[in-house]
Each structure stands twice: as C-alpha cells, then as structure tokens.
C-alpha cells in the first residue's frame, strides 16, 4: 500500500456529540429481569443473554441514534461521537472500580478487556462510562459467527495451503486456539469533492516497419490534457484506529490480512455495552481523529480516482494522472469495536506473527501461511528447468 499523503490544513474545532449510553455506568450492571451480572453475548442471536435466568435483550441499534443521520450531501464541518474524542495522554489504561456488591477494589486493564470479575463476591464489573483513553467507543458490532464456525473456516483455509506450508507451522497448527478480538476502528461518513489533472493518449495509427527479425511495431497517438471533477459521499468508510494495526508493511507484519476481511455490516452496530465483550478480548484505540486525517484523505483520493476512471476509458493508451486534490466539506466520525476471529502463529526464524483472520460477521477469511522456502524454491527451479529444456528443443528444431 502506498504512503498516505501529508495532512491537509488544520480544520475548525470539531463538534462533539455525546454518545454515552446513559442507561449504564461503571461497575455492576445487572440483568434487567433477575439482577445477575453474569451476562454475555449469544453470537447466534446477536443478543445479550443472562447466564442465570436466560433472559435475552439487546442494546439499541446505533444507526440513527448517535447522530441526526441526514442527507450526506449536506454534511458540513467535522462531527465526532464522544467515544471518538481525543485521547488524553495522562489517562491510564488501568481502571480501578469499587465493587457495588462487596466494596472490594477491582482492577480492569482496558488495553485488553472491558470487564473483570470481583475476586471476593464474583460479580462481573464492566466499564461503560466513556473515559479519555480511547477504550470505550461510541458503538460495538457484536460477533455473529461462533467459535466453531471460525475454527471450521480457518481449518478450511489452511488445508488448501498445506503442500508448501512451513513444516513447523503444520505441526503446531491448532485452529481451536482462535481468539475473538474486538478491534478498534473509526467509521467515517464524508461529503467530498475531488479534482484530478493529467494527460491521456489516444492511438491514431499502428504500423510495422522492417522485415523478419527486425520487424518492429510503431504507434502514432494524440495527447490530451485532462481534468476531471467529482462530488461524492462515502458512507461508513472503515479506518484502523490503532497505530500498530494501521502499519501495514508485509515485509515485517501481516496486518494487511486483518485489513482484507473488511468491510463489516456496520449499520447493525449497537450502542455500547461492555457485556458484549465478555469472553472476548479487545484492543484499545490509540489514534485521534486528527491523526487519522492522512489515512482518510488517502482513501478519499483513491476513491475519487476510481470514480473518474470510467470517464477516461476512451484514452486507450492510458492516462497519467499528475496532480490531485480533495476538498472535504464534511465528515462524521464514530469509534467502533468490530469483531474479528484471529489465529496467530509466531514464526521464530523470521520474527513475524502470521495471522489467519475471520470476519466475525460475514465469515470472510484471509490468512498468511508461512512457506517452506526449500520446497517452494525446488519446485520453482524444476518448472524452470523443464521450461528451459523445452525452449532449447524448440530452438534446435527451428
């Protein structure tokens, strides 16, 4: 993936919309029917279930509730949900809660989890108040794919790639170890205009000169200076809001694998309730809106170039775009946890973690299987030798 462009001019202060789920607080949050705190997600229904009385319920759908979701072409300025607000450097990821059941102090490390069980009275304590460390988002998209389904998809993916897989990887392959992780993303709506400038060529004549081995093809072409303008809106563009996950360099990591299983059905996200995360792990957001502007502009410019491509199809010899610009009239940012089933394998000799990732909603699967270099090189060389022998035979016969 190419390097994102430098950030544009600083914008006016964004409007922050309060998205805090007012029905919930930090600490003990009880089942509305029986009062138990043993609550978790039931993936098959997408509902929260009380493990004590089996009552099922769901938080309100976020779409249309967090913002006034009007016509995107009228979007102006920057609006962000309070869960996407800037992270304060002095706010610790570790939160200490006082258990309302027994008064004990319970520690929750929000970098990896949003709940903890009181070691004295066994109540489950959850973090629901938005704190300025990026841990509580505006919304969450619950897992819809079960652990068994994820294991099946990972097994199928890996079984198609056995022949040239690293022998140690095959030996240690344990798909049951797949972990459900809520990954942090920013979901962005935008109202945008873009202009691109360049040159295109249309072939006017094609002819050959010379004879036999000196025969060459020549082209005549008309050169045009081009300009294209496009106004467009994007709905739910999904951007990694963890700096580590956004760093996609395939020579040192396999983060592109997690990126590839996008998109998610973000329209079905619900308002925050930490109980959706019980039994899963989570990664905390560490990027603010301002820091993500370059990534956003890179995606918007790419979309603009994609949109104008059909309008230059008559330039059969291609187009060289030389300059581009994007005017962002309005954006709306929501921070969201998205569900990913993640199988990790650490390849010691390369010092690299290989992921096989499954979209926790759609089941889309992608992975990086470490290769057995020796086998791969041997087979490639063998094919090369066969091709070379055939080439020599053709040369000798002709």
């Amino acid at each position, binding site marked *: 993936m190419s390097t994102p462009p430098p950030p544009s001019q600083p914008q006016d202060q964004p409007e922050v919309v309060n998205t805090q789920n007012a029905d919930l607080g930090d600490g003990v949050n009880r089942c509305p029917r029986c009062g138990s705190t043993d609550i978790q997600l039931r993936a098959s229904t997408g509902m929260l279930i009380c493990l004590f009385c089996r009552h099922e319920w769901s938080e309100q759908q976020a779409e249309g509730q967090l913002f006034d979701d009007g016509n995107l072409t009228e979007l102006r300025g920057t609006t962000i949900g309070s869960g996407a607000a800037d992270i304060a450097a002095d706010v610790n990821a570790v939160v200490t809660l006082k258990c309302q059941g027994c008064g004990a102090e319970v520690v929750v490390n929000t970098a990896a989890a949003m709940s903890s069980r009181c070691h004295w009275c066994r109540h489950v304590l959850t973090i629901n108040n938005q704190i300025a460390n990026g841990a509580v988002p505006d919304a969450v998209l619950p897992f819809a794919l079960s652990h068994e389904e994820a294991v099946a998809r990972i097994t199928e993916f890996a079984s198609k790639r056995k022949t040239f897989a690293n022998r140690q990887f095959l030996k240690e392959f344990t798909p049951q170890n797949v972990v459900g992780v809520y990954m942090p993303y920013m979901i962005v709506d935008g109202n945008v205009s873009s202009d691109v400038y360049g040159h295109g*060529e249309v072939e006017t004549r094609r002819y050959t000169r010379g004879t036999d081995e000196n025969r060459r093809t020549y082209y005549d072409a008309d050169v045009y200076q081009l300009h294209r303008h496009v106004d467009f809106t*994007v709905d739910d563009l999904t951007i990694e809001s963890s700096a580590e996950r956004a760093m996609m360099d395939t020579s040192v990591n396999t983060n592109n694998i997690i990126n590839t299983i*996008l998109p998610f059905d973000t329209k079905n996200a619900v308002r925050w309730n930490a109980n959706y995360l019980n039994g899963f792990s989570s990664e905390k957001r560490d990027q603010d809106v301002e820091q993500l502007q370059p990534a956003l502009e890179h995606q918007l410019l790419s979309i603009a170039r994609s949109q*104008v*491509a059909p309008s230059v199809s008559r330039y059969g010899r291609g187009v*060289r775009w030389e*300059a581009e610009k994007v005017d962002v009239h309005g954006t709306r940012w929501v921070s969201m946890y998205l569900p990913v089933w993640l199988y990790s394998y650490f390849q010691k000799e390369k010092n690299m973690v290989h992921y096989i990732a499954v979209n926790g909603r759609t089941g889309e699967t992608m992975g990086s299987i470490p290769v057995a270099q020796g086998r*791969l090189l041997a087979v*490639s060389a063998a094919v090369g030798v066969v091709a070379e022998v055939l080439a020599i035979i053709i*040369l000798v016969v002709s």
Partner: protein
Amino acid sequence: MGIGAELLATGAPILAAGGSGDGSPAGILLAGPIAAIAVYGLLFRYYRNTDKSHSFETETRIQAAPITGGEQKVNEIRGTQQTQIQGNNVSNHRQRVQRAP
C-alpha cells in the same frame, strides 16, 4: 522486502525482456528463468497473501454526482514504440501524485 517480493522485482526486467516479442534466439532462452520466477511468485502470494488489502474503493457505499471536467488536445506523437503512455496510472488508484493547490 520478502524473498518473494525480491524475486518478483528481480524478475520484472527479465519478464519485460522475454516479453518483448522480438523473436530472437536469446529471448526464448529466458523461458526457464521466467517460468521459475512466475511459479515462485504465484505460489508465494497464494500462501502469504501479501498483495491483499480491503478494496475500499469498491466495497464502500459511495454516491457520486456525474463526473465533469474537460480535455484539450496538446500534442501528437509519431512513431513511438511504447505501447502505452509513460507513467500510466489510470488503474493504480492508490498511487498518490502531486497534491494540487
């Protein structure tokens, strides 16, 4: 850079030379290295998927107004052997170019 990427990069000029279609005996002798590099590259990508990423250009809900703009003929080229415009990036949407003011 991974070994696969390195080999692909090394192979690109060879592929270009072999694919020139000049029909010379030396050209056909490149068939072996070309085949070896192609097989390695294809298998490496199939296992490692280093070329994959989210296709946000096509997998995002986008509503675009009709495209506007203009074109003006500025030059004529006669007798070039290049099959396409130099620096053709019409399909490479993610290659960033100079930012216009």
